[in-house]
């Protein structure tokens, strides 16, 4: 084996290792970009201000997907959320809640504003185009589907859980629909302690 062929072989080995390292780096980074709760979207809040995925960073979050034409699950969850804020008092002062509409055609920022302000001044209503709503719903694995009720009327089937996110925006768990208040408060206190 000549020096030249050894040199070529070594350079080849270096190239192969470099390629492996690049592929590994890309593969290892992938979960961060596409994991649960990850996504990018451009939405608006109840005041018409732009909102993207960074809105969940910097404070612990309770995140709910619903719609104002919702007869039961959403008002019930909003009422329970109001009582969580009330029960937590100062302890929950860092907690922020978000109500993301999965019915953006009917839920304008104006409609959402009065609706969520009934709950607390620490909950924000979020809406946007159907395409951008689809992106945030996909990021959180939220199911929603239109159900026609005759004429122009329709209602929505949708995921009813509240998602809990820590201050870095990482998913930490859920509060199920109608979970008893003591359990829900326990989960929120854990979240606040970690954040």
């Amino acid at each position: 084996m000549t020096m030249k062929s050894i040199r070529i072989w070594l350079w080849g080995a270096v190239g192969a290792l470099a390629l492996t390292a690049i592929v590994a780096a890309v593969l290892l980074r992938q979960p961060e970009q596409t994991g649960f709760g990850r996504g990018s979207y451009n939405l608006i809040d109840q005041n018409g201000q732009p909102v993207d995925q960074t809105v969940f960073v910097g404070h612990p979050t309770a995140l709910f997907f619903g719609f104002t034409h919702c007869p039961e699950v959403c008002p019930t969850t909003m009422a329970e959320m109001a009582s969580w804020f009330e029960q937590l008092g100062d302890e929950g002062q860092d907690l922020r809640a978000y109500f993301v509409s999965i019915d953006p055609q009917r839920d304008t920022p104006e409609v959402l504003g009065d609706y969520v302000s009934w709950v607390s001044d620490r909950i924000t209503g979020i809406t946007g185009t159907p395409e951008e709503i689809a992106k945030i719903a996909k990021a959180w694995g939220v199911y929603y589907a239109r159900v026609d009720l005759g004429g122009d009327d329709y209602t929505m089937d949708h995921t009813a859980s509240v998602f809990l996110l820590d201050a870095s925006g990482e998913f930490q768990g859920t509060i199920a629909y109608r979970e008893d208040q003591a359990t829900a408060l326990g989960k929120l206190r854990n979240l606040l302690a970690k954040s």
Partner: protein
Amino acid sequence: MIRFLRAAFAASFLLVAPAFAQDHDGTIHHADLNLSAPFTRATLPNAPVGGGFLSIQNAGADADRLVSASSPAAAMVQIHEMAMEGDVMKMRQLADGLELPAGETVTLAPGGFHLMFMGLTQAFVEGETVPVTLVFEKAGPVELELPVMGTAADAAHTMSH
């Protein structure tokens, strides 16, 4: 003429009044049906829909059916069934109404069957009442008032929190 109208009105009341009677506990007896513990829930600002709940006991020997409902408080009232499938809430209109088997009690309650008030003329306010007319296939129509409870109330007489 006025006297005649008054008499006609009184007579019509006589015809309607025996159709139902109300117990001391608020239960309404309508033909073979006993309607009890009706309620609805206070609505949130801008929410154009509400749910109505009650228990319907069919004390008769034949099945009946709740076929429709209406209210001056809403553009439309439908009969719906809600069900949780995993963490997903699903809502279905019962287009053929709600079967009331003989000798059984069917309960319309949060999380299940309910009256769906759509296109509310005004918000449902806790402490007020909402009128509704229920139409049964055999027992015919009956009017009742649903007391408005708290937003997350589970029953007619409990606190919301």
